[in-house]
């Protein structure tokens, strides 16, 4: 299996999804060897991890980040990192009898194609996002698009993380719908750390005891995530409910732009930027919120609302997300519909009964979710294509 990151070294949801999927596949007796482009000392007992370079994650991330398509090929290191990865994979693939090559997202596609050429093994490419998702609806970097197109065409099967992603793959790259299967991501609530008694955001707790309500977003600050849209909505929410605080957790290329936008809108005092967080600070950001908002322009899957409810916080999410295909007990809105976003945030914040019912129903809902279902659906695809080979 080819991936570009695994937790704790991850810059987004891709690493988490790969890790959880592999874990559940292994439980279903799939023997996995996972290739990473950086050196990790992370240990696990369910799969073997290969590193293609001795470089550590921080250094690699500086050179080439999966979400950083705009800078692709603007540095020299990029091609060499990818070449290392490709050559390693191609030669590794010939060392023993593998059954399947399973590759996650564009950065691994060149390696996957090379390995397929060398071995004629069936190739499954797993799409967590495509370039047009990551560039917020623009077409994005044409070189990346070329890689994606080739990878999707060469693949024997494409797995998409949502129906929405399946449709955009078909639309952007003319891949026949029959070639694409949807395997939704999931969540195993037992896997997530628990909240403890004190919340690290003490100042926000103080405000809450003074009647403030907290709306949180956790994610990268890039155009795809539509935090701009959230801030415009925030302005109207604050006009109606002045005691509303927006906690924005994350980092990204829009960081400075978003701060100055809050100032222009006159709501700087209602918006708190907490930067990129992990561990307790990440969990507590969900924990302290009354409502989690994921207003993304395009979210191929989008696991955060499920993480939020695991910490007791219901969500408002855009219809333009894969998770909205499977998550029922939440509020939904079109990402461009600012007024409706305001309507739902306000309607939620001033209705304790609504909050209570949704929290209860949504908690019940995620308890029944599991990666095991996704793993079983993946194995089904494996078995179809293994047969073709035989």
């Amino acid at each position, binding site marked *: 299996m080819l991936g570009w990151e695994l937790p704790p070294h991850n810059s987004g949801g891709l690493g988490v999804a790969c890790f959880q999927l592999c874990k559940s596949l292994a439980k279903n007796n799939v023997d996995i060897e996972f290739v990473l482009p950086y050196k990790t000392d992370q240990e696990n007992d369910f799969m073997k991890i290969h590193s293609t370079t001795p470089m550590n994650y921080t250094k690699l991330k500086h050179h080439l980040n999966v979400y950083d398509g705009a800078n692709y090929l603007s540095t020299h290191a990029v091609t060499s990192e990818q070449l290392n990865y490709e050559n390693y994979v191609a030669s590794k693939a010939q060392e023993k009898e593998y059954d399947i090559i399973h590759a996650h997202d564009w950065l691994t596609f060149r390696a996957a194609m090379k390995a397929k050429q060398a071995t004629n093994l069936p190739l499954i490419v797993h799409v967590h996002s495509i370039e047009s998702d990551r560039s917020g609806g623009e077409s994005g970097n044409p070189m990346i698009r070329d890689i994606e197109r080739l990878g999707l065409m060469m693949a024997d099967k494409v797995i998409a993380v949502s129906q929405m992603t399946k449709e955009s793959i078909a639309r952007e790259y003319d891949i026949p719908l029959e070639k694409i299967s949807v395997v939704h991501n999931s969540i195993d609530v037992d896997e997530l750390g628990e909240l403890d008694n004190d919340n690290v955001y003490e100042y926000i707790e103080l405000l809450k005891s003074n009647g403030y309500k907290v709306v949180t977003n956790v994610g990268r600050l890039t155009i795809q995530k539509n935090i701009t849209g959230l801030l415009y909505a925030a302005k109207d929410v604050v006009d*109606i409910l002045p005691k509303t605080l927006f906690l924005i957790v994350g980092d990204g290329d829009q960081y400075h732009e978003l701060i100055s936008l809050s100032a222009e809108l006159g709501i700087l005092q209602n918006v708190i930027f907490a930067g990129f967080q992990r561990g307790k600070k990440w969990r507590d950001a969900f924990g302290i919120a009354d409502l989690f908002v994921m207003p993304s322009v395009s979210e191929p899957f989008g696991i955060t609302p499920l993480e939020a409810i695991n910490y007791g916080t219901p969500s408002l999410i855009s219809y333009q997300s894969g998770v909205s295909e499977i998550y*029922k*007990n*939440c*509020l*939904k809105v079109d990402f461009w519909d600012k*007024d*409706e976003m*305001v*309507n*739902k945030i*306000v*309607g*939620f914040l*001033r*209705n*304790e*009964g*609504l909050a*209570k*019912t*949704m929290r*209860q*129903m949504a908690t*019940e*809902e995620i308890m*029944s979710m599991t990666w095991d279902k996704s793993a079983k659906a993946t194995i089904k695809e494996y078995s179809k294509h293994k047969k073709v080979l035989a």
Partner: protein
Amino acid sequence: MKKSIVLYLHAHQPYRVKDYSVFEVGKNHDYFSWDDSDPNGNQKIIDKVSEKSYIPTNKKLIHLLKIYPDFKLSLSITGTLITELEKWAPEVLQSFVDLVETGKVEIVAETYHHSLAFFYSLQEFEIQVRMHREKIESVFGQTPKVFRNTELAYNNDLAMWADKSGYKGILAEGWDKVLGWRNSNHLYKPINTQNIKLLMKNYKLSDDIAFRFGNRNWNEWPLTADKYINWINDSQDSEIFNLFMDYETFGEHQWEDTGIFDFLENMVPIWLKDENNTFMTVSDAIDSYKVVDTIDVPETLTWADTERDLSAWLGNAMQQQAIKAIYSLSSKILGTDDWSLIEDWRRLQTSDHFYYMCTKYFNDGDIHAYFSPYKTPYDATINFMNAWHDLRFRLNEKGIEI
């Protein structure tokens, strides 16, 4: 003594709240006028249900009432539906008037706004019952003598109220937990009452028509009139068969292509073929049979879901908070004498609004969803509460402290 089928049909439509956003609060006080293009709009639904159900069913019933001297039925129709028909489909209302004018249809009393007011404000409840009576008198020239509460929500206190108010009968669900070893096919008397009698719905026979008729996975499908009447004729220890159901069963819940209209047309003569069989209205049944026992219902009983309680309307926190919010405005709203404000407030009391907020079964694919114009119970709640905020805005405008 003959055996009787007591067929009672309940016709109702609410004023559904449109997508009413926070930006309209304080600016647009019209909560019920939907976009013309929206198929869930109140007028659109009146058009649809009239065409599929009210018009063909009235036609069929009038035909049957004219041909068969022993065929009779009872009907209730809410004030909200009557006003919607007056506004958007007067010819359909006329067909109900024609139906009643056959002289063989008895109208049953209820609240004008199809509300759960009995459980929140007795004063408001009594006003709505009076409003309904007056409306029925003016449209149909009949004064109802038998009472049914919204959703057949019934308990001992309601029966005592109806008894004191002079009703000769009241309707309730014939639920096994209440009946115990008895069955619903006799006349009963509510506990602690003087004169009033109780008719209890035969839910099995009623739901065979109302819910299961068109279900191809049902092992009795297809249900023919012969088979159905055989079931009734075979019932031991029975005098009356109380078939209570939504009027919209005919043509709307069960579409024409299920054969529901043919079933109706066929079952009447097949039942009457035996000269010991007849049809009765609710009052006829009360006058004709003897009370066999007393019924005690301390906890509220309804005709909904397997729980047969109010949980479909008041089961979750949003529903409880929303209905509390509405009744918390009672005295302030009634004090204004602003009849348009008061009417809007009453329309928001209609039980359907709370039903749309129901989350029961939502996680396993909701049967309730079929009856809701909203995508989720949460959307229903936000629209409703925005309308509630606007009621408060209007009170505030009048200088009333909110």
